[in-house]
């Protein structure tokens, strides 16, 4: 069986969902003839036609707005943002119109907002960001950020079928760098469920997206030093899977949170608060975090390397934590 990349897995999910349900349409910039800036929708115009693969002007607010309108009509639109950094342009539509709709007046918004996020590709300040926490802080949305091809496909299918607006973040560093065999048969991955990627007993490294891979690499390195780390991949950031987090902590009693998002106000802080409130007795040491710096994402390779977490930084923090 041919191995499937993270990007191809997303493409497969989109095509299969659009084949399955004519209520699913896509809207975004350059997604049709060009097939999207990263070619996620390559060949989809050919297959589904102009009515279902809708190329728009450069108008992020109008893209999200039109998608909301479509969802009110019972369609399930998937809105692509060419780079997720541009989500700032439609912040109001998403946080005020989309997210509050069901709570305010009982109108569900079954739409997916998807786009490439994350750094490590020297994209600079406006093509590398991780904007998840603006939206994790917005009741009414769901936020997913997969780390594997299998999850990307399964979570996308769940997102399309969800009756709620789902922000689906795709890590562009992973797009073509990872691949795996995917099941032939239909499957979905539930939103709101974390996955234990590596069993361990000494400490828990909690992470997601590209940093899940970094954390796993660090765990292998630590294993050689006699530190047995458990690695948990959150997969969904809103709603958070408290049960899996608490279960892992109960086993290891030590928690290190790793994310590529900047430090202040990142999800690590929220998880630390959750743990202190709900599982304080389980802790044998401080909750540590390895994150990006509190700066914009710098462009030049040595600067971006300093900015981002990496295996060494994760391993160093884990060693500190293991001492407790």
């Amino acid at each position, binding site marked *: 069986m041919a191995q499937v990349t993270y990007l191809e897995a997303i493409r497969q999910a989109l095509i299969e969902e659009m*084949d399955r349900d*004519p*209520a699913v*349409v896509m809207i975004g910039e350059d997604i*049709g*003839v060009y097939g999207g800036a990263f070619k996620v929708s390559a*060949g989809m*115009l*050919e*297959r*589904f*036609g*102009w*009515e*279902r693969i*809708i190329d*728009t*002007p450069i*108008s*992020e*607010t*109008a*893209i*999200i*707005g*039109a*998608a*909301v*309108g*479509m*969802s*009110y*009509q*019972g*369609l*399930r*639109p998937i809105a692509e943002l060419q780079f997720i950094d541009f989500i700032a342009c439609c912040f*109001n*539509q998403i946080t*005020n*119109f989309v997210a*509050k*709709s*069901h*709570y*305010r*007046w*009982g*109108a*569900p918004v*079954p739409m997916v907002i998807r786009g490439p996020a994350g750094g490590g590709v020297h994209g600079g300040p406006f093509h590398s960001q991780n904007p998840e926490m603006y939206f994790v802080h917005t*009741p*009414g949305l*769901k936020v997913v950020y997969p780390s594997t091809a299998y999850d990307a496909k399964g979570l996308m299918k769940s997102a399309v079928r969800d*009756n*709620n607006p789902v922000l689906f973040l795709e890590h562009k560093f992973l797009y073509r760098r990872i691949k795996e065999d995917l099941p032939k048969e239909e499957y979905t991955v539930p939103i709101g469920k974390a996955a234990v990627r590596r069993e361990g007993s000494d400490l828990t490294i909690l992470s997601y997206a590209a940093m899940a891979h970094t954390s796993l690499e660090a765990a292998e390195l630590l294993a050689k030093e006699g530190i047995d780390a458990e690695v948990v991949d959150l997969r969904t950031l809103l709603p958070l899977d408290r049960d899996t987090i608490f279960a892992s902590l109960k086993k290891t009693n030590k928690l290190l949170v790793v994310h590529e998002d900047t430090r202040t106000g990142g999800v690590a802080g929220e998880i630390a608060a959750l743990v202190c409130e709900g599982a304080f007795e389980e802790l044998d040491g401080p909750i540590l975090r390895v994150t990006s710096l509190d700066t914009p994402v710098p462009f030049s390779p040595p600067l971006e390397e300093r900015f981002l977490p990496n295996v060494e930084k994760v391993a160093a923090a884990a060693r500190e934590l293991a001492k407790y």
Partner: protein
Amino acid sequence: MQASLTREQQVELYYYMKLNRSLEERLVNLFRQNKLLGGVYLSVGQEAISVGTAYALGPGDWIAPMIRNVGALLVRGFLPVDIFTQYMARQTSPTQGKDGTSHFGDLKKRHVVSPISMLGDLIPVMTGVAMAGRYLGQNIVTMTWIGDGGTSTGAFHEGMNLAAQQKAPFVCVIENNQWAYSTPVSRQVPVRDLAERARAYGIKSFIVDGNDVLAVWRTSQEAVDLCRAGEGPVIIEAKTMRMRGHAQHDPAEYVPKEMFEYWKQRDPLELYEKYLTNNKLWDAKTRKALEARIERELQAAMETAEQASFPPAELAEQGVYCDGCHTIEAEWKRSKKEVTPPASSVEPVWKVEGFGVKEAPQTADTKAAVEETLAAETPGRQVKSGNGIPAPFTKSSSNGKNAAKPAKPAAKQNVKSKPALVAARKGRR
């Protein structure tokens, strides 16, 4: 297109306008008695627009009202009790107390989308409803309203441009009520007629006297028909006046007294009452009965609302997500096969006509519009700052056919007037 309204329909227009006004008068009283929560945003003087435009739509069409469109909600079948309970934040309100004012809707039956407070956002949303309607084969038209102030938002432009590019069957009604909170139109935009914006989108537009309900209805009918025929979207600019402050707390002292006086003479209800009387469409008895009915309905609605209880506190925690409480189902009016492979397959290439700007095909409409623009240099059309009284109302269309001829200052004068105008604007800041 329905060419004219029956006597009953003409009286019904009055019913909705009067209901709109009387309802809001009661809201003011309730506000003064501290029985309402939040602000009260009135549409006094603008009832003809809400009612006349919404009246031109069919039951399958969609609307999204803004804050001063209680009249449209009433035409669409919402009841006074819905509005009272919204303002009183009761459990029986359409939003169960989750939101107030006109922030409510009904997707399935009345096809009403709830607004949010941020202006302009409904333009792309209603464009999307219209696009979906076409995709589903419904032949519907969507409509929303926006004030003069709201047209300056980015969402307005993005939405109108997308609607135009998509030829969406969407009517955008600009209620030019002269004031965005405390700022007159002349301090918001450098054009007199907001309908001129339509030229930038290459779409049709109308200007109508917003205080003449029949003119509003006729113009809306025309716009709706154009949209249904695939010639949308359309902008209607309705000239009117906000006869109260932005909300009930605002005495609107910044509005020149003469301006209120001028518009008081053009009250849409009084004008229409005269019309109905002069044309013998009603008699004193019918009118009295109608007004008694309105009072009865409002009194009953108000009592019901006042007796309604507040929502239970635990409701605050419910409804963030749809956990299967709704069934999402589109109303298909065409075969799903048409939009499913292989029938949906296309050749993925752009068909580009003209190959360049110079050779780009120009329709008679756009050509006429361009010529007209060149002829009517905008700086010559200065708006008198202050009272904001518009020129005589004319129904015009940007296709040039029925367009009111704008004043044509000589070319020389234009060159001179331009720097003067710039200087004047700078001085004002």
